[in-house]
């Protein structure tokens, strides 16, 4: 079992090393198939997701992410999260819904250990987070944020290919993967050589999503990814997200304060308020919920929500 202390041995930065052994799909069968098969195999193939980041097999029905009595307190003593118990199942899109300061983003950052819990445990892929090598954990989880955070001095291609590169994938393999990802997120090949400042807001977020998907992580964390986009672009990206999710079948945790977005994208909605989980419901049930806060949300967003909520327990 690796500890935090061991995570950056000398040579960890060596580009030729494969510290986390994030395998590209099809690596083992690389020679046996032609290009086309390999490409389509990459998209639906799921075998990295049946292993944890230490390459131990995971039971199929175990929750992918599990919060066990998690609390998070700021160094100054202010509590941000209390008694959080939550399970995220394989392949679902769990939306964390709540107003600013309700603890959504904190919850998200506990998954990839950008924050460490003050109490309780977070389990990811069948292992308690504090026992997993933090660097490998993060490389096996895609992370998309509202401000995108593209590296301004890298081209789109280098941005997307960064994790594969530091994982030591061969160059031709990375190039192939970048082209494939650009296509997946609906961008043209010519974008690859551009710099982030040459892109529109929507294009940037598409690149952000492509970058998060680069090493084919089984988990995707998305923190208000479409929050800064105009309504039309947001609508388009939401629609594409649903198509993408259908195709890639990732386990997604999605943070938003927009009920419409939550109803549209989520398979379950976890409502948060003042650092606590209020309720977890599928979209249709959320609309009918008698919980006062959920009802208040539904009322605040007004009419026409029924048509948005596509998934639920009918």
């Amino acid at each position, binding site marked *: 079992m690796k500890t935090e202390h061991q995570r*950056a041995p000398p040579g*960890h*930065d060596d580009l030729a090393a494969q510290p986390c052994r994030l395998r590209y799909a099809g690596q083992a069968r690389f020679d046996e198939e032609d290009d086309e098969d390999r490409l389509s195999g990459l998209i639906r193939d799921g075998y990295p997701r049946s292993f944890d980041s230490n390459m131990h097999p995971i039971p199929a029905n175990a929750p992918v992410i599990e919060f066990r009595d998690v609390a998070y307190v700021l160094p100054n003593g202010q509590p941000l999260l209390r008694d959080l118990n939550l399970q995220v199942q394989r392949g679902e899109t769990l939306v964390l819904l709540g107003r600013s300061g309700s603890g959504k983003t904190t919850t998200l950052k506990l998954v990839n250990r950008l924050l460490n819990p003050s109490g309780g445990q977070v389990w990811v892929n069948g292992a308690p987070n504090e026992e997993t090598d933090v660097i490998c954990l993060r490389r096996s989880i895609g992370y998309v944020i509202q401000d995108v955070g593209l590296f301004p001095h890298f081209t789109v291609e280098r941005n997307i290919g960064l994790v594969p590169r*530091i994982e030591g994938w061969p160059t031709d393999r990375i190039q192939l993967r970048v082209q494939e990802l650009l296509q997946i997120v609906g961008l043209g090949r010519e974008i690859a050589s551009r*710099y982030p400042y040459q892109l529109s807001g929507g294009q940037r977020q598409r690149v952000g999503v492509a970058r998060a998907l680069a090493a084919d992580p089984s988990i995707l964390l998305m923190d208000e990814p479409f929050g800064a986009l105009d309504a039309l672009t947001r609508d388009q990206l939401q629609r594409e997200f649903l198509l993408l999710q259908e195709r890639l079948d990732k386990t997604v945790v999605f943070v938003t304060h927009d009920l419409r977005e939550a109803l549209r994208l989520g398979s379950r909605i976890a409502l948060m308020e003042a650092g606590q989980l209020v309720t977890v419901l599928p979209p249709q049930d959320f609309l009918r919920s008698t919980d006062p806060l959920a009802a208040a949300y539904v009322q605040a967003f007004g009419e026409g929500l029924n048509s948005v909520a596509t998934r639920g327990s009918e």
Partner: protein
Amino acid sequence: MNVFHFFLQHHEEILELTLEHLWLVGISTLLAVLIGIPLGILSAHWPVWNKPVLGTANIIQTIPSLALFGFLLPVPWIGARADRLAILALTLYALLPVIRNTYTGIRGVDPSVVEAGRGMGLTGRQLLFQVELPLAVSVILSGVRVAVVVSVGLATIAAAIGAGGLGEFIFRGLAMVNNQLILAGAIPAAVLALTADFGLGWLERRLQPR
């Protein structure tokens, strides 16, 4: 015309002292960069170090240069040779702009870029060398530029303790009330400063991330 003749006549000595001057400035700037950039990184990443490091560099900056040369004279190995002493003093003066700009440059990197990098699983070192430093490089360079320009001027004072450099002409000229001699030191020093300023400014713009 007189000055021109003087320059022609003494061109060998002028060249020699200019090279000496360059050496003093070059070595001290190099040392300041080697010490200042790590200190700047240290204070940018660990806020605890911020005040002591920048505070010390600030205080050094306030010591009058002639006094600093005097203070350092009794220091064992350093005081034994004037050029060592001059290099140490110039290094100390050059530290502040280098440290401060490294600090500012790294702190100025868009927080969302750093968060994305950490979230993707870059190690601290990868984040520093592949993201933070490349993005801060033009700010750091502008600190180096300030340090060099200040050093070129300050190094003329090093002649007061016998460290050589273009200050020799200036001090000699002052003693002999000879303007030509003063100009023989001042003009090449000004040209050096301007050239360094222009060259580093050009590099700074070239390396500016978009």
